[in-house]
């Protein structure tokens, strides 16, 4: 076994297989596990995916949402056990790999249009707007 295969065999057990297809511009709900003392609860962070980086176990996802007119971004490891699950709420039509331009936008221009084409890879489902 080569070096890379050995390292990947270590990572294999930690890499999640149940992550749905997430594209840039999609609105995603990340269910984060929050531990307070002995109690554990789930906090949902919903926002637009503006960036994905890294590969395999190092893959990170940046989710941006607006809270009280303030932009909040969370960079989450896709394979962290602290994220219980990712849920795609809405498919957005983004034409770039990184949507950093959204940081400068406000009001109507901050929105991303629904995606109506190119959804074959997710089984052709077209999520209606206002979902």
């Amino acid at each position, binding site marked *: 076994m080569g*070096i890379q295969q*050995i*390292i990947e065999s*270590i990572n294999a057990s*930690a890499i999640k297989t149940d992550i749905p297809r997430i594209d840039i511009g999609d609105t995603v709900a990340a269910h984060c596990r929050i531990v307070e003392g002995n109690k554990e609860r789930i906090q949902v962070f919903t926002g637009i995916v503006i960036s994905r980086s890294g590969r395999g176990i*190092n893959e990170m996802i940046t989710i941006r949402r607006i809270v009280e007119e303030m932009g909040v971004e969370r960079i989450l490891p896709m*394979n*962290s056990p*602290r994220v219980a699950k990712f849920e795609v709420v809405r498919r957005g039509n983004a034409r770039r790999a990184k949507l950093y331009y959204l940081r400068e936008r406000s009001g109507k221009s901050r929105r991303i249009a629904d995606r109506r084409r190119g959804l074959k890879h997710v089984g052709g489902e077209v999520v209606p707007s206002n979902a």
Partner: protein
Amino acid sequence: MSLMLLGTKLGMTRVYREDGVNVPVTVIQLGPCTVTQIRTAEKDGYSAVQIAFGSIKPRNSTQAVIGHDAKAGIEAKRYHREFRCSADDAAKFSVGQTLTVKDLEGQMFVDVTGTSKGKGFQGTMKRHNFKGMFASHGTERKHRSPGSIGSLCSNRGFGGGLKKGKKMSGHMGAERVTIRSLDIVRIDADQNLLLVKGPVPGANRGMVMVRRATRLYRSKANKVAGKKPE
């Protein structure tokens, strides 16, 4: 009892603990090593154990090494290193014995020694963490220079010159570095893998020496004491 093993640094990755904490780890393929010689005080003047690791083609080795390793009943190995131990401990090893990563089970910390990556000729800022000169305030072409290296009366060595060891520019890296008290994250006996927390000196595929932690940092010693009172 002291124990050292030889291995190959494979690279770094990350591991999630049960509580979800992300731990950066270095993967080391450790052993199996073979004991090739026992040094004794009577014969060699000191007591130590010599171990061998890593395959090498016989035609790339030497007759001396081939013959030496044949005494332990193995093919010639690439690396041979010794670790010192007391005569009583050395007597517990026997020539031809195989040491594997399993022998580190139950340990919490290890020391890792390797040869750091060579950086070539480097200035004082990179090599000794000097701060350099001002970026502005009239500084010209001297932003990364070390500044004054002392007058005749300070740092004085013999004959009015500078003391040896004065920190200056020069060759950096490619030297033996030991990182002490690294946490063992996981041991995989099937694949001879050792995962330690944090980085380890040297490039991937480089040879590293891993020994039981000899002298823990105080914080880690307290941690051990708190967990396992002695």
